[in-house]
């Protein structure tokens, strides 16, 4: 048992790497030891997916899928909290993971068929095919309970909020989420390497990048971990990693369709059409796009670039449209955001009594359903906090977190007390410069992770004063109000830039990134979303009117 922290300890990437190793150990080592001691053999299997039908699994995929590391994903819902609003959207990261594997094969098969047109018998060989399929299986292993919802709460906390920048700077990649960083370190951990090593004992050639066993293991681990963070894994096909993380990667092909299907909302993505519009081109180094040219080693033979046929611009538009509809209808549904805020408020409340590392462990060691309805006592045990060390505020914070998680379980949800619009068309002062700029500046202030606290403090104090003036029968304390009220500003929808990177491959001319040819689809998508609220203040139902007035 430990006492609560006085100041959050700053987490480093080494801390995350170390915890990912322990996490992988707990979810793999006993399982792998058992396989080794029993000389267990695995056979091919077929599983049925409601969207994609029969999905074939190789023996090593069966072994990985059956491990606690992947089985754990059955307990983590793909969309975190969306099923409280769209009851059908209770699908898990496990189902999505298998769907991504299917879409990897879909893309690989399409690329190999296109390679045949150039007499390339196997553009993506067996080794890379198996590697990419394994990447599909592990790409979401870094998710904590409630997927992105808990992750977004953690990423705002002092002590944790610098990790993503440190990671990006260290590995020279764009911004990565905590779940991707965690998956990267799980793949690079000794227990995961131990799993691969045991699999090589069973099937010595399931992937063979080198005849030297150790070097082969190193290459498998390096390429898998690099692929999940969007780094190059091959010189001959320089964009091969984009089957896992790219403009039309297997992840999107599955979740764009699965999330919409499960929620019962329309999706415009026609995967068979997209596959039909994929193109490949053999190119000399001289003909590669400049940046790719700079980043590849010399090889014998051609480089291969894949992208979309010139006639396929419309399928990229469909990707943009599918993405925007998912955000507009599902991910940014006001009630979905309200539920997310409740969950995040519970975690942020606990951050006042637990160290950042303890809180990270908490959401990785409990799954979705274990957290719902959890008691204060179990929270304290889960955080390894001695209750006698907590002051009154600490106890209140733990009780409030437990209450929020209980309210969620029984769907007693927060409501909108106030919503901030991009535009106020009926306000005669809408176009008045001072007001217009003032509204923008206000939006920026409450979007800022530190400045929003000052505004919230004022709001909480005012609600507290109003409660006293109105002689509310059970007034909430300042701490309780701080946890019960939440403010959320809604930023740009992510993903448009990545889709716009897809290369257009004309038959003869040089490849061209679609972003340089088409109208700026990212700006178009942002315009589409501009009628949606830019922010909300949420409160418990019984307080909403009061908060609105304040």
């Amino acid at each position, binding site marked *: 048992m430990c006492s609560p922290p006085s100041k959050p300890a700053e987490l480093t990437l080494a801390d995350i790497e170390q915890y990912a190793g322990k996490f992988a150990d707990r979810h793999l080592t006993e399982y792998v030891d058992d396989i080794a001691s029993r000389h267990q053999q695995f056979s091919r299997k077929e599983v049925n997916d409601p969207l994609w039908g029969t999905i074939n699994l190789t023996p090593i995929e069966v072994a990985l899928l059956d491990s606690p590391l992947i089985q754990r994903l059955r307990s983590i819902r793909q969309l975190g909290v969306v099923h409280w609003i769209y009851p059908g959207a209770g699908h898990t990261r496990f189902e999505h993971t298998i769907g991504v594997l299917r879409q990897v094969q879909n893309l690989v098969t399409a690329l190999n068929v296109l390679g045949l047109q150039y007499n390339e018998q196997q553009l993506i060989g067996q080794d890379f095919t198996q590697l990419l399929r394994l990447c599909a299986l592990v790409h979401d292993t870094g998710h904590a309970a409630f997927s992105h919802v808990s992750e977004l709460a953690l990423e705002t906390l002092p002590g944790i909020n610098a990790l993503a920048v440190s990671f990006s700077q260290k590995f020279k990649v764009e911004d990565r989420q905590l779940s991707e960083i965690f998956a990267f370190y799980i793949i690079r951990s000794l227990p995961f390497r131990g799993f691969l090593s045991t699999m090589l004992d069973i099937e010595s050639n399931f992937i063979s990048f080198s005849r030297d066993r150790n070097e082969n293991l190193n290459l498998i681990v390096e390429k898998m971990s690099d692929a999940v963070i969007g780094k190059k894994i091959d010189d001959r096909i320089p964009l091969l990693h984009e089957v896992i993380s790219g403009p039309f990667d297997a992840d999107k092909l599955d979740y764009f369709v699965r999330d919409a299907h499960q929620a019962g909302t329309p999706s415009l993505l026609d995967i068979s059409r997209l596959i039909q519009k994929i193109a490949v081109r053999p190119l000399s180094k001289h003909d590669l796009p400049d940046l790719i040219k700079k980043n590849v080693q010399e090889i014998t033979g051609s480089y291969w670039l894949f992208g979309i046929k010139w006639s396929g611009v419309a399928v990229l538009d469909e990707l943009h449209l599918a993405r925007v509809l998912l955000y507009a209808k599902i991910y940014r549904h006001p009630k979905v955001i309200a539920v997310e805020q409740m969950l995040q408020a519970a975690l942020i409340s606990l951050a006042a009594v637990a160290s950042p590392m303890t809180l990270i462990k908490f959401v990785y060691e409990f799954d979705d359903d274990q957290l719902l309805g959890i008691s204060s006592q179990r929270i304290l045990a889960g955080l390894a906090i001695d209750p006698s060390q907590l002051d009154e505020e600490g106890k209140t914070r733990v009780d409030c977190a437990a209450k929020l998680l209980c309210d969620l379980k029984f769907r007693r949800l927060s409501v909108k007390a106030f919503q901030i619009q991009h535009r106020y068309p009926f306000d005669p002062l809408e176009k008045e410069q001072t007001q217009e700029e003032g509204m923008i500046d206000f939006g920026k202030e409450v979007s800022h*992770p530190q400045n929003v606290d000052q505004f919230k403090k004022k709001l909480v104090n005012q609600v507290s004063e109003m409660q006293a003036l109105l002689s509310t029968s059970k007034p909430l304390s300042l701490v309780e109000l701080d946890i019960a009220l939440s403010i959320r500003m809604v930023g*740009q929808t992510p993903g448009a*830039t990545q889709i716009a990177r897809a290369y257009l491959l004309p038959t003869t001319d040089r490849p061209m990134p679609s972003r340089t040819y088409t109208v700026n689809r990212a*700006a178009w998508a942002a315009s589409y979303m501009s009628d949606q609220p830019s922010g909300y203040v949420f409160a418990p139902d019984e307080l909403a009117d009061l908060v609105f007035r304040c």
Partner: protein
Amino acid sequence: MQNIITSDQFLAGVISALALCGKSKFQLSDTDLDRRFSAAFDDLVSRQSDLNIRPNFTFNVDTMHGDSASLRDALLAAKEDKLIALNNPTFHTFDIKLDDVRAERYLNRSPVPREFFQSIVEKHFADIV
């Protein structure tokens, strides 16, 4: 406690410093601006201790494509905030819209001192159209 600087604040600071030195037109051709902002971001990171700030974003570019998703999202946010105007139809050029008064206000409120923004504008954006 270190002050967090967001991508919107950093971009607004650079745009304000550009506006105050009379630069108002930009080309997004094709990844030139991403490269400049990435270099400016590296300068910010190198000075974060002495400026007592902490960025909660990066403007690192994708090595194979040369663009930065977080920069492009910040540019769209800047368009929403009427700091810049993207020119139709392909939005490959944009104009800075904010006036000197607003630019001064952004620089005065920024957790990063204006001298830093002026220095990176001189270093990375001096030759811009």
